[in-house]
């Protein structure tokens, strides 16, 4: 891929972008020689001649894409088609809260104060793919929730890719700010509408001020030709609670870089993931929790079911600074391999400099429990269904913390569908 320098010099964040571009030029795409990319190769993707600036596309009909939105409840929607904002499919607001577009936030004077304070402030200035996004992103979601506010409904950020371009690279950029005591729920989804090469390199910055609550759900259930590199950076202040759920059920190659920075005390950071893969799919979860201040907690619970030739990676890094006493950091990664050819590489990476902390980590890789299978079979549930039910139960356990019940139901269904379970009960 070749990146022309199409940077607009008049742009308000021009300096940030040139700096970012310089960094990317120096570093280039990560290779397997780098420890963090040991198990995930971007080589094949780099050979594809992606269009970076797509041409205008025909509008999508609502009925074509309806099923990709949350059913049964109303939501705010920020929708993009081949990287371009679709006002027709979207529902934004400025009523007490701002749920709108990144391009508007970057150019309108009224948002300058927020851009100055937050844009590119927690995102890495060093990570090559993040800086690539910083240099070239044109659009994305901008959400600003002022002090003590909560939007009336959840926000869905959805990126559709139509296949109008044979191969397309998208670089969305989201900025989400929840001020003191604000609350917000966001669902993010990337969806190809046809089978075509698409590479999304998305960067999301989330700022949770004191006592803010942010629930963020990522639905990764794309076509087998779609690849996603998700770079999410979260800056938390005291007493804030941020939970990120990542549901990885489909796609060609998915890399999740999820980074939490705890800049305050009594913070709660939660990362949960369900990964169910088959075919030759590949998912790589890289999490980082940086415990910078005392008295904070982090909880990680990732579950994976790998079939056929799929491959998975879980790398969970926890850093506890010397002054971050009374830190509670928990990390759990459990995997079931249902095929001899599937592989998972799981690795906890703990760097603890404080002495009064509770850190626990555990990872398991196994097959289904034979005793549990026999138990279900002895009640008349055939082996195939029993296996599916056990896998369903294994994955489903992570969903308890999903606070939007309609979303929970829809994820439940996706899991059942993914595992080919005919559940003898309604969800």
């Amino acid at each position, binding site marked *: 891929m070749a990146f022309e320098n199409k940077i607009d010099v008049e742009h308000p964040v021009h300096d940030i972008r040139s700096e970012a571009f310089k960094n990317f030029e120096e570093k280039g795409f990560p290779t397997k020689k780098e420890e963090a990319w040991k198990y995930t190769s971007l080589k094949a993707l780099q050979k594809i001649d992606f269009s970076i600036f797509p041409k205008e596309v025909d509008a999508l009909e609502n009925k074509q894409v309806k099923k990709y939105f949350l059913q049964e409840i109303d939501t705010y929607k920020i929708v993009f088609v081949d990287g371009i904002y679709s006002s027709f499919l979207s529902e934004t607001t400025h009523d007490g809260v701002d749920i709108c577009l990144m391009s508007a936030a970057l150019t309108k004077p009224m948002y300058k104060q927020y851009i100055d304070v937050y844009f590119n402030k927690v995102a890495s200035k060093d990570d090559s793919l993040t800086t690539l996004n910083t240099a070239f992103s044109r659009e994305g979601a901008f959400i600003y929730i002022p002090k003590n506010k909560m939007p009336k409904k959840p926000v869905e950020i959805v990126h559709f890719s139509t296949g109008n371009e044979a191969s397309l690279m998208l670089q969305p950029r989201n900025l989400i700010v929840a001020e003191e005591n604000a609350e917000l729920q966001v669902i993010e989804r990337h969806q190809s509408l046809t089978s075509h090469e698409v590479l999304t390199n998305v960067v999301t910055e989330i700022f949770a001020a004191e006592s803010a609550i942010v629930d963020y759900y990522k639905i990764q259930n794309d076509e087998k030709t779609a690849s996603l590199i998700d770079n999410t950076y979260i800056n938390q202040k005291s007493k804030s609670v941020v939970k990120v759920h990542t549901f990885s059920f489909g796609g060609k190659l998915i890399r999740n870089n999820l980074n939490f920075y705890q800049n305050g005390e009594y913070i709660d950071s939660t990362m949960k993931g369900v990964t169910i893969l088959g075919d030759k799919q590949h998912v790589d979860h890289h999490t980082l929790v940086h415990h910078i201040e005392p008295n904070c907690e982090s909880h990680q619970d990732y579950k994976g079911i790998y079939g056929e030739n799929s491959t998975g990676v879980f790398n969970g890094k926890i850093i506890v600074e010397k002054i971050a006493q009374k830190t509670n950091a928990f990390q759990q990664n459990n995997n079931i391999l249902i095929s001899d050819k599937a592989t998972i590489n799981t690795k906890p990476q703990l760097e603890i400099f404080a002495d009064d902390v509770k850190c626990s980590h555990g990872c398991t890789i196994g097959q289904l429990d034979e005793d549990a299978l026999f138990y*279900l079979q002895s009640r008349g549930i055939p082996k195939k269904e029993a296996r599916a039910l056990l896998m369903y139960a294994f994955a489903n356990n992570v969903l308890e913390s999903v606070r939007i019940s309609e979303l929970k139901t829809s994820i439940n269904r996706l899991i059942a569908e993914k595992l080919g379970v005919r559940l*003898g*009960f309604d969800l």
Partner: protein
Amino acid sequence: MLKISNLHAGIENNEILKGINLEVKAGEVHAIMGPNGSGKSTLASVIAGKEEYEVTEGSVVLDGEDLEDAAPEERAHKGIFLSFQYPVEIPGVSVTNFMKTAINEGRKARGLEDMPAKDMLKLIREKAELLEIDRKFLSRSLNEGFSGGEKKRNEIFQMAMLEPKLAILDETDSGLDIDALRIVANGVNKLKSKDNAVIVITHYQRLLDYIVPDFVHVLHQGKIVKSGTKELAHELEDKGYDWIKQETAI
């Protein structure tokens, strides 16, 4: 109903059952007693079809049909139920959803449609009442964090739901206090009819005060070494198993 003939079975070349003969007729309650390691739980698992046990000789026949090639679920569909000594914890599946799945899979095997939701709820409520089970309990994950007594009560609840022809209760009394024991036994007795049969596997005579057996068999070193009526259970309670061991040693 059940006819076990010269049954030899074991695990990884280690023979545990060494020629069991047992016949259970409809309407009967049989107790199988014996010291630890005599093969009681193995016998229960083999009847239920646990795959890790290998049957090397003999047969288990239910209603004239040899069960040799039947998978555990097929045996369940034919009416065999095993109440586990150690029920498995399954986080993520509620008791209710588990029962719905089990009932509907059973119906499917018999060529029936799923049970209508309304009937299912009614049945669950009815059987839960029989076992004095709280409704909140039914929405909990199967056996997860249940006390020993709750697990056993839940096993009998499942038995009540599935209405088996032949129920095997494997050490159902272990871990139960006297009140729970009474509830569980009462449940079993209410389910008892002239058309079904129960095999009670127990180490102690205690449960047999509540579920009164027609026949008592003593299992020792993989064989039934003595059979009798309920008085035999009392004798064992008084004298322990040593005299049986001595008798069979001669």
